[in-house]
């Protein structure tokens, strides 16, 4: 089939008519049909294309206009990174401004991984200059894995000058290593105030979950003592800095900065000098002593021996050290002044006397005869003096520390009254001091005994009358109780004297209410305690102050930790000093001075110190002497309005 297409081209090409023309018409028809279908379908496609793009335009509208604000928020969250700034932790100082806990700059070496091509090699070269411990290496490897390359990794902290010099000298061989300054908590007084000031340690995961601030590197949490109880004040409030970051978190610009509040400076009522003096007096024995300003309850010294080095906790305590501490029978980690409980022994007698006088069950002049023992309900209770004290009134009862007199008093007034008065005087009850882990001790009552499914015997009341049996108190309670007897006010012990230089209301004696007890009773008891020290045949002649014109009132106590059997007692060969250490009685002494204008109250407990009069009384006297002599100006100045006034 030939076709002369050459003649037919272009838009208006001519057409042959005739035989061929007819055929061409049919061709044309078919072509037109195909073209018509094409056109229709192409138009259909165009409509579909327009509609689809229209739908996408609609989608764009939804994204940008309808949910525009939502996405704008998300974009800002992408772009702006808020970081907290760690506030410096507040200092803890003593009443004269001596630092007990402060922050020390800590030089550390950091490695910026992105600035070195050979990270392991750089670390090795660094280790050749400054030794790295194994736990350092594992920590570095861990941080390397989790951090971005532009976040520095800490290689070593606590660098010495020597080590820093060596690093600087070798700087060309250590690309990416920089020296940076951080802070660490230091305790200049170390073990001396460890039990009071406490220590800090890195927060654990639960703490971090509670407060985002704690997640910041270098943040520490108080774990004991004032550091723990005043943690919120010491920590301060975090500042924040808003930064523009890119998609990998690199900081591009600082947009806004809100400085935080540094931690508060806390002034303790403690006198570090007196604390040291008390520590020196006590020496190495396991003992506890509290010196309190009996007018307002400020604790001037609180010593618990032996102590520990608090700085060990910041960098981590070794296992061996921990085992040594926990296995020591003298319990160095426990603050005995608030967490050690002891039977008060005869130091409890003024409380029993007060219970009797307050309830008017006896008068100070009432006499009982002491034959060296008393029989109650078929049991015999001995006085410490084998042959008795004869006729004894309140004054003599305290002066001789006559057990039979107080057996009789306790029997007459009953345990509930003793307990109520004791609690009012601060014994066997939780005291509101700013220390964690304090113990309440115990003044037993029939009700308490019942609760533990035991019957209260008459004998229980009798032995409680001399501070034995179930009675348990802490040295701090003894000092508080002594202060309350000395002043007649319900003073509460406390350690925080000022916050950021502003005195707390507790330092004002008028803050404390007067105890609802007859003044006559106080007078009789104070006189009895004066006699203990100053009159002939008192139990504590060794406690007389060596300062002329100033007298001290006190009370001895020797608390048995083991029942002395009748056979042993009657053999006449009983000598507690020969017992193994842990079975010897505790030696206690409480006192206040000056007698006519009470200023200080002191309580001393020597664990297994055998006899209060023999060992605790002289110690208490020495401590009191120190307290009175250390700063005579201190005595004359009433607690003033500022810390400086106290000087």
């Amino acid at each position, binding site marked *: 089939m030939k076709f002369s297409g050459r003649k037919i081209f272009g838009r208006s090409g001519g057409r042959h008519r005739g035989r061929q023309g007819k055929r061409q018409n049919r061709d044309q028809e078919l*072509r037109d049909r195909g073209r018509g279908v094409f056109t229709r379908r192409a138009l259909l496609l165009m409509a579909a294309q327009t509609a689809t793009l229209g739908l996408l*335009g609609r989608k764009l509208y939804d994204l940008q206009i309808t949910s525009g604000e939502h996405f704008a928020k998300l974009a800002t969250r*992408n772009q702006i990174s808020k970081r907290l700034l760690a506030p410096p932790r507040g200092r803890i100082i003593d009443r004269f401004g001596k630092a007990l806990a402060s922050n020390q700059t800590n030089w550390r070496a950091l490695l910026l991984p992105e600035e070195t091509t050979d990270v392991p090699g750089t670390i090795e070269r660094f280790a050749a200059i400054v030794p790295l411990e194994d736990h350092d290496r594992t920590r570095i490897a861990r941080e390397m894995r989790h951090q971005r390359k532009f976040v520095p990794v800490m290689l070593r902290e606590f660098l010495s000058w020597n080590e820093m010099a060596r690093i600087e000298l070798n700087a060309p061989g250590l690309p990416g290593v920089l020296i940076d300054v951080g802070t660490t908590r230091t305790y200049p007084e170390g073990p001396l105030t460890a039990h009071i000031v406490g220590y800090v340690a890195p927060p654990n995961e639960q703490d971090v979950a509670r407060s985002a601030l704690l997640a910041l590197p270098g943040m520490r949490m108080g774990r004991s003592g004032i550091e723990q109880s005043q943690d919120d004040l010491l920590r301060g409030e975090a500042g924040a800095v808003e930064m523009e970051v890119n998609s990998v978190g690199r900081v591009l610009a600082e947009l806004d900065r809100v400085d935080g509040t540094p931690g508060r400076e806390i002034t303790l009522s403690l006198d570090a000098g007196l604390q040291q003096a008390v520590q020196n007096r006590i020496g190495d024995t396991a003992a506890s002593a509290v010196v309190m300003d009996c007018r307002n309850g400020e604790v001037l010294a609180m010593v618990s021996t032996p102590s520990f080095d608090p700085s060990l906790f910041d960098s981590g305590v070794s296992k061996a050290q921990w085992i040594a501490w926990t296995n020591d029978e003298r319990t160095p980690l426990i603050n005995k002044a608030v967490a050690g409980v002891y039977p008060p022994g005869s130091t409890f007698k003024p409380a029993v006397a007060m219970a009797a006088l307050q309830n008017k069950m006896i008068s100070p002049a009432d006499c009982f005869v002491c034959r060296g023992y008393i029989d109650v309900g078929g049991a015999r209770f001995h006085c410490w003096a084998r042959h008795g004290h004869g006729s004894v009134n309140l004054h003599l009862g305290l002066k001789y520390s006559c057990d039979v007199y107080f057996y009789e008093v306790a029997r007459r007034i009953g345990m509930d009254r003793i307990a109520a008065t004791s609690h009012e005087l601060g014994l066997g009850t939780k005291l509101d001091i700013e220390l964690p882990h304090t113990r309440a001790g115990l003044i037993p009552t029939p009700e308490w005994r019942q609760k533990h499914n035991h019957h209260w015997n008459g004998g229980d009341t009798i032995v409680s009358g001399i501070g034995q049996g179930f009675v348990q108190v802490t040295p701090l309670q003894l000092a508080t109780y002594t202060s309350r007897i000395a002043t007649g006010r319900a003073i509460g012990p406390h350690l925080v004297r000022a916050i950021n230089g502003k005195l707390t209301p507790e330092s004002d004696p008028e803050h404390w209410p007067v105890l609802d007890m007859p003044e006559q009773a106080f007078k009789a008891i104070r006189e009895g305690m004066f006699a203990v020290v100053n009159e002939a045949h008192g139990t504590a002649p060794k406690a007389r102050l060596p300062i002329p014109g100033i007298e001290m009132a006190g009370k001895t106590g020797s608390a048995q930790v083991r029942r002395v059997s009748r056979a042993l007692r009657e053999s006449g060969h009983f000598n507690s000093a020969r017992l193994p250490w842990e079975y010897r009685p505790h030696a206690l002494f409480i006192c206040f001075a000056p007698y006519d204008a009470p200023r200080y109250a002191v309580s001393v407990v020597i664990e297994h110190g055998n006899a209060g009069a023999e060992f605790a009384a002289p110690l208490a006297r020495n401590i009191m002497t120190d307290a009175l002599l250390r700063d005579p100006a201190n005595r004359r100045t009433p607690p003033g309005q500022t810390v400086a006034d106290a000087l």
Partner: protein
Amino acid sequence: MSALRPSGSRFHRRLLREEPGFSLASRLWRVNWLYVLLICALAGVGYVALCSAGGGSARPYAGPQAMRFGFGLILMVTVGMLPLRLLMRLAFPTYLASLGLLVAVLRMGHVGKGAERWIIVGGVQIQPSEFAKVALVLMLATWFSRISYARMGNPLRLIIPAVMTLLPVGLVLKEPNLGTAVIIGGIGAALFFAAGMRLWQIVLLCLPVPALLKIAYAHLHDYQRARITTFLHPESDPLGAGYNIIQSKIALGSGGMWGKGYLQGTQGQLNFLPEKQTDFIFTTIAEEWGFVGGIVVMGLLLLLILGGMAMAIRSRNRFGRLLALGISVNFFLYCLVNLSMVMGAIPVGGVPLPLVSYGGSSMLTVMLGFGFLMSSWVNRDVRSGESADNGEASEP
């Protein structure tokens, strides 16, 4: 001039009647310069957006891309000058070459973002799947121009073009590049449709599709189903596969009505936006110019698509019509997949926005396609030969 003289075998002469021996000048005159202007406008938008992606500088994206566009412009006009017969003759070799390149990319391709998509020919990175689209359009247009509308009714005649379509689709799927595979399949379907495939054939083909999808889903592994879930709910995996989609939506959405201002787009400038200069260039534009800017770009794209379709309708020969339609549909599918992708409507699929995104292969093949389109337009008044639309015409 001699290169432009009508040439071709007897066979091709029968398919297309003698083309007018235009002078070069008259051919140039017949080029649709308005359309060329539209193309330049879109490329200009791309240049500005690439400057933004480069942080306000022509380097490293906008400058090289402008050079490629200039080259592409020359390529387009040159191809536009070619007679249709020459294009028909070149169709089969081009198609074979594109298949060869696709096989080569599977054999020795360079892995880019988890898929083998690149090969290096003469020091130039090329993406054969881009080339395959244009080659397929040319091939199918040529093939269908041999089968008249009347003969399209015979399903046996559709077997060969179907194989021609499925071969590159399969090869691209293997790379794997789902987005491009869908586009190639879509081009094929559109050409079948436009060439006059009967409705009953279409219905018959579509019937088993839902059942097939169901069977396919049942045979998917758990992790593959999880991937589909991620596509549907990108928020369930914000840092994994869903990251790009979420970040793109955030950048788009935060643009608002008027945008954040040129070079002020935080998400793009701070690199939260992945691949902001290639696949996600539209997001950069919409973040900085807002909804208004986005709609203007979409309007330009639509004008180019509809213009191409209109040129297809206007052509008096079957080959030119199909060629122009195929190129327009290709361009449309490009835009559709890319825009749906950046708006989070479909899974991310490595499809750039034509003329705007940074990338040489895409730019050059798109411009080559526009060259075919232009050739169809320049020769719009050439009529089909008797073999083309005449049902009784014999084949060699």
